């Protein structure tokens, strides 16, 4: 029975966030129904995560998945993706919407990683060095992103997306053509046989799991025991990665309360009013984007050290799409996102990611159906979220027009 309640919310999602905003005006009219309204509003506000929770549970049942195995996979995915998703929060606060430009940050992170790999510096020290090197690179590209996006106010998301494609071209130009041809570099281990350009996949043995197992000298994070006859584990918990991610969450929630954070929120609320109040709008947006880009670079580093290999020319392409889809699954909108949206979103989205090929295999006899289904979900979630947001904005502005 409880499963059936949220299912109609698929169509109800459109009404849901609207319901979340109406009580502000509606409470004065109907005091009696306030409790019911409150419950409805809470349910409505969380309708997207609830829907995906139901979908995940159905998927788990259909795939007949071993829960231990699922949790093992999930811990890995949670630790390697959450940082990237968190890097989206600040631009949303500053009114820039979903920052599709984090792809550019991811490229900066990869550039730093290539440098570190080239010099063969490994371990936690190598990882830290890569993180350090990625800062100036991502600050510069983040600043460039901001210059472009400040020229396209009101179209930041589509511009950010195209900027990602454009930057991908420049990235390939540097690492596939110029490297070894104009930029002197000689390293047969990571370069193509012709001596020009990097290989398609680069092995990151030196740096593999450097952060995940950074605290191995204290505890290696292996969880394996039995409760009665039920086996629990084996899970491997990447302690340091989770600590770093949690630290970022703390820093972000601290940043929101600072003066800068308040300025960002003011800009996010209304650029013109912020401008009148004496806030330098373009500067605030630039800072938000630079922070986001640097965080995305680090996020990509965390992602890659967990994977252990890098697809030089593909690893970064889907970073934006998947991070954004995960955040939206967690119940965020293009104007409001919290740390919990990010965490819940990563868990739900990646549960579906693990489950859907297996479910597809069992239901349709081919895993491809499930694979296409999860891609469809990623794109579909973004499309629905964007459409909902734009529709609400239009309804709101229409109401304001009529009110005035």
């Amino acid at each position, binding site marked *: 029975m409880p499963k059936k309640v949220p299912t109609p919310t698929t169509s109800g999602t459109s009404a849901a966030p609207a319901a979340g905003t109406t009580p502000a005006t509606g409470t004065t009219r109907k005091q009696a129904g306030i409790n019911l309204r409150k419950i409805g509003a809470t349910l409505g506000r969380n309708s997207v995560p609830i829907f995906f929770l139901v979908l995940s549970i159905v998927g788990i049942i259909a795939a007949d998945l071993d829960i231990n195995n699922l949790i093992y996979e999930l811990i890995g995915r949670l630790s390697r993706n959450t940082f990237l998703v968190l890097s989206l929060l600040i631009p949303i606060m500053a009114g820039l919407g979903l920052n599709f430009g984090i792809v550019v940050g991811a490229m900066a992170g990869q550039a730093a990683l290539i440098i570190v790999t080239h010099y063969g510096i490994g371990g936690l020290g190598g990882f830290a060095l890569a993180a350090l090197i990625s800062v100036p690179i991502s600050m510069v590209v983040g600043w460039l992103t901001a210059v472009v996006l400040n020229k396209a106010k009101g179209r930041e*998301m589509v511009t950010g997306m195209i900027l990602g494609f*454009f930057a991908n*071209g420049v990235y*390939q130009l540097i690492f596939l053509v110029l490297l070894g041809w104009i930029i002197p570099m000689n390293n047969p281990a990571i370069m193509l046989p012709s001596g020009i350009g990097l290989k398609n996949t680069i092995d990151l043995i030196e740096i593999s799991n450097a952060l995940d197992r950074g605290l191995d000298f204290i505890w290696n994070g292996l969880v394996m025991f039995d409760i009665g006859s039920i086996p629990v584990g084996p899970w491997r918990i990447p302690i340091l990665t989770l600590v770093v991610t949690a630290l970022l969450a703390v820093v972000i929630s601290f940043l929101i309360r600072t003066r800068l954070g308040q300025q960002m929120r003011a800009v996010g609320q209304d650029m013109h009013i912020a401008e009148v109040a004496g806030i330098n709008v373009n500067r605030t947006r630039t800072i938000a984007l630079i922070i986001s880009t640097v965080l995305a670079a680090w996020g990509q580093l965390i992602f890659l050290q967990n994977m252990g290999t890098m697809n030089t020319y593909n690893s970064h392409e889907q970073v934006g799409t998947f991070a954004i889809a995960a955040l939206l699954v967690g119940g965020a909108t293009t104007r409001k996102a919290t740390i919990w949206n990010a965490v819940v979103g990563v868990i739900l989205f990646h549960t579906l990611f693990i489950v859907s090929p297996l479910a597809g295999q069992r239901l349709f006899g081919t895993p491809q159906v499930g694979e*296409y289904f999860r891609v469809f979900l990623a794109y*579909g979630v973004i499309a629905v979220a964007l459409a909902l947001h*734009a529709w609400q904005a239009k309804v709101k502005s229409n109401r304001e027009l009529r009110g005035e």
Partner: protein
Amino acid sequence: MSNTKLNANGNGNGSDLDNNRTQAQVQAQAQGAAGFLQKVGAAVSEFMKWYGVPRLIITCFLLVLIILAIIYKMDLGSLLGDSLTRVGMNGLLVLAMVPTITCGVGLNFGLPVGIICGLVGGVFSMSMDLTGFTGFFVAIALALPLSVIAGWLYGKLLEKVAGQEMMVGTYVGFSIVAGMAIFWLTAPIKNPSMIFAIGGQGLRYTLTLQDYFGGILNNFLAFDIVIGKFTMNVPTGLLLFFGLFCVLLYLFFRSRTGLAMLAVGSNPQYAASSGVNIRRMRYTGVIMSTVLGAIGILVYAQSYGFLQLYNAPLYMAFPAIAAILIGGATLRKATISQVIIGSVLFFTLLTTALPVVQTVLDGSEVGGGISEIARMIIQNGTILYALTRVGRR
């Protein structure tokens, strides 16, 4: 009115530049020479304004490539012939951008919606074992009602999200392509030449059109231009088909409905006050674009020789968008001539880049990479430029 403004601007800029450059020389030189320089400067800056920066860059690129091709004694005839084919092949997809821009919806990033309809038409036409022109026109006939319905639904959605059409359109296109991949996998089609060899279900990634309607337009009335060693193949049918649709669209914009649509795009308030149904015009524009997308992909496929399913249509909107922007269109205004100019410039560049670069670099592995990278940078750079140009809605 805007023209006079541009003129004034152009003159201003030109004289400024000129003053800087000639300050040292102007005393020594005769008054007439300075005046002449000033005129040239003004003319140049005016030309730049009129011609547009992206178009200028692309033209320069293209000229460099053609000069290189001549220097390296490449087969110009086949280069230009291939380019012509490529232009006709993509022309309709570029043309599909015009109705949406004109009716004020902007660039149609959701072109895959139409493309998918065309692919469905093509697939079912093939599954009926129809060949030649019958196959091609049945495919179009099947795609038409589908694309009208899809276009209407898509227009309905875009109406609701006014202001964010491009972003929503992109992701609606993406999700439809991904969703249709599931349909291709489970489609009830039994033609053994179309489905996977193993498993007995699911359409192949690319369907060969050789025995169906591959090259049907390209070969129609095709002839060779031969001047000495220079041999150039002209795909007459393809160009005629593209030309036909250009003329049809041109005539449409001279009609009552077309003029109303132009009014809606350029000044919605004015259009509404003169009794034009804005909503209906936007729907008409989106439906027209979707239909053109559907026919466009069939034209593309018959020329290419393959029907590409699954993820192939995912990024197909972007080259078309880049082409029309290179032609000089903006997010608000587009004409048929811009479609033709843009297609010719952009697709000739794409077609000639690969062989020329490969010849110049003497078959080194970098060649293929460079031209693909150049495509990415030019295509997305052009779109980026256009997006950062116009002020807020």
